[in-house]
């Protein structure tokens, strides 16, 4: 049976990551960073990777990594979601790393595993596992073309680029033109990648690698969404206990109590779905269904939780200085990332044989 709980080690890991993020990613700092030229928090990244070795969790020990599983990665992502941390963890330590695990690229895998290099899969962030993605032209050993909506490309040292010959290529970021796009989610910025005759190293078959990468990305994104939803719920409950109107804490109004209780139920469900996806990815059993279920459920909960947080913080929630907007923007972008809920429901219809009329 799937293990939906957290082990003691996982709880210890959570505590360590949370501590670290409390030092690095406080809300005013994250907000200030979104408006700077360096949207990624590379100091936090260094602390998470150099200090704690977390970039290598999915990399086997004999390949220079930690040899942990998706379950531990999920715990890290819960905490990163709680802090809307602007670090390329999901994109480099999960998605790019999974793509490399599907190829024979041990040297790069080891580099990504230490966190000293950051990788980005050059597939648009909205593509679901199994979905069609854009490729670049491969001609006389060089790559040509433009790719858009590449998450965290600005922070990447190496880009993993699918080409029209069916290969996945490693391209040094310095050989590409990476241009920031104006992202809705300011904490996971997107960029376009222009290749104009760039040299790439063939890593292996793109289709299998991209599929594996996106499936892990989608499945583990649910843990980020859970962390985000849980933070917004907790923070809203805290605020409503404190905020007084009509001579009493507004949280005491039954109209609000019931709404928050309802939201709590959704968040509890999301934790189970996200845990299930992480465990299934770790064991490889029932992973397609588990990922589809998690992603068909997670987006609506995370968005709902962030929207409720804004509404219940009311005026202060509409301001830039209050962090709830970071969470709303992340939640809304997450609802598109690695496929919308609707796309995952359609995938589920095939997997469990419930075809559309």
């Amino acid at each position, binding site marked *: 049976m799937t293990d939906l709980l957290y082990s003691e080690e996982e709880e210890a890991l959570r505590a360590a990551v949370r501590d670290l993020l409390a030092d690095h990613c406080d809300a005013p700092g994250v907000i200030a960073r979104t408006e700077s030229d360096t949207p990624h928090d590379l100091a936090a990244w260094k602390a998470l990777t150099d200090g704690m070795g977390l970039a290598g969790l999915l990399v086997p020990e004999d390949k220079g990594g930690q040899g942990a599983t998706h379950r531990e990665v999920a715990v890290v992502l819960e905490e990163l979601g709680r802090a809307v941390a602007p670090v390329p963890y999901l994109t480099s330590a999960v998605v790019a790393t999974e793509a490399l695990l599907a190829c024979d690229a041990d040297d790069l895998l080891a580099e990504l595993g230490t966190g000293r290099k950051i990788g980005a899969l050059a597939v648009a962030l909205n593509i679901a596992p199994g979905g069609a993605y854009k490729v670049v032209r491969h001609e006389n050993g060089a790559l040509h073309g433009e790719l858009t909506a590449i998450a965290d490309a600005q922070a990447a040292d190496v880009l993993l680029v699918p080409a029209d010959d069916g290969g996945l290529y490693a391209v040094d970021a310095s050989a590409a033109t990476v241009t920031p*796009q104006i992202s809705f989610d300011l904490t996971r910025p997107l960029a376009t990648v222009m290749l104009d005759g760039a040299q790439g190293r063939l890593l292996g078959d793109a289709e299998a690698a991209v599929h594996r990468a996106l499936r892990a990305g989608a499945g583990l994104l649910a843990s980020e969404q859970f962390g985000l939803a849980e933070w917004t719920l907790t923070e809203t409950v805290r605020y409503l206990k404190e905020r007084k109107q009509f001579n009493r804490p507004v949280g005491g109004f039954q109209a609000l109590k019931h709404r928050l209780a309802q939201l709590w139920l959704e968040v509890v469900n999301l934790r189970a779905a996200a845990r299930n996806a992480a465990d299934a990815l770790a064991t490889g059993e029932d992973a397609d269904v588990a990922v589809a279920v998690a992603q068909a459920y997670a987006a609506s909960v995370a968005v709902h939780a962030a929207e409720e947080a804004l*509404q219940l913080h009311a005026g202060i929630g509409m301001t830039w200085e209050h962090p709830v907007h970071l969470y709303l923007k992340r939640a*809304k972008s997450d609802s598109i990332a690695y496929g919308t809920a609707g796309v995952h429901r359609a995938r589920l219809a095939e997997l469990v044989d419930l075809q559309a009329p």
Partner: protein
Amino acid sequence: MTDAAELQRRTAELLAAHPPASTDRFDFLKARFDAGLAWVHYPEGLGGLNAPRSLQAVVDAELEAAGAPDNDPRRNGIGLGMAAPTILKYGTEEQKQRYLRPLWVGEEVWCQLFSEPGAGSDLAALGTRAVREGDDWVVNGQKVWTSGAHNSRWAILIARTDPDVPKHAGITYFICDMTDPGVDVRPLRQITGEAEFNEVFLTDVRIPDSRRLGAIGDGWRVAQTTLNNERVAIGGMRLPREGGMIGPVSKTWRERPELRTQDLHQRLLKLWVDSEVARLTAERLRQQLVAGQPGPEGAGMKLAFARLNQEISGLEVELRGEEGLLYDDWTMRRPELVDFTGRDAGYRYLRSKGNSIEGGTSEVLLNIVAERVLGLPAEPRTDKDVAWKDLAR
């Protein structure tokens, strides 16, 4: 009584005397005001002709067909929707003569200094003080979330003039001069990136007693007029089919077949039906008003439009897929007018979050519907008979 034919005659006269093509915009609008064709249900001499409100549409249609300039209500929504009806009801003759014409014409824009950091939904808890000194009132305090204060010439302001009585009884309503040196307007950036609203600090602002609106201590009752009109102004617009937020997303759907999915199709159709039904309810309410049978539906319209704006713009962000991950522009600006639909889907999604907060939150409006429309018992109140100064804060 003024009927449609009479209004058409007067409109034709106005157009003949001031051909829109060769008349300065403000001159035309002033002439229109003076002809009683600004808001026809207002009294004569104040921009109206004491005509039924519904006949405004006759005038508007004729003027639009003739290419006449309009007074751009988006720029002065608070002035037109809230300050004007309050001044009309509670203002002295002098106040009405002084303020209504430049307000309607748009020469003078208004804002609303009501909310405070500690007094939002519970507006009557406000703490900004106004102390009488001879013929003046001296005002000190802080207001917040003041939309458009940076563009405004005047503000409607409520302040506490008697802390020794229960909170609703000690409030007085004023007209505040935003150019007074004691008025400090500071931009407050919001979720969309813009600073559409502001913090306003009031330090020893002197307001002559002649700018008081209504009796001393009667400010809460005066404010009710403003707030009721605010809800009507927000919910009461007359829209054609697909005239609201459903318009842009329907357009996207028609023009971009590659974005369509079955899942989104069902959700879009549901919201299309909801939008059409809300539009019909608003139209029915309007017809009831004309027939002299005002219904309580008005209280629900703001609720309905807030929900629809939010759900529809949220759907469009998702529909746009890769583009939905992007935003048009985060530059910090202080916009002159509120443009709910003009920018991209992401902006509409974020801005519409304010629709269920500004002008009274949806939760508070639902309470009003439950208590005043359905007659359900109110929540127990512990602050009704306590002097404001003795309330816990």
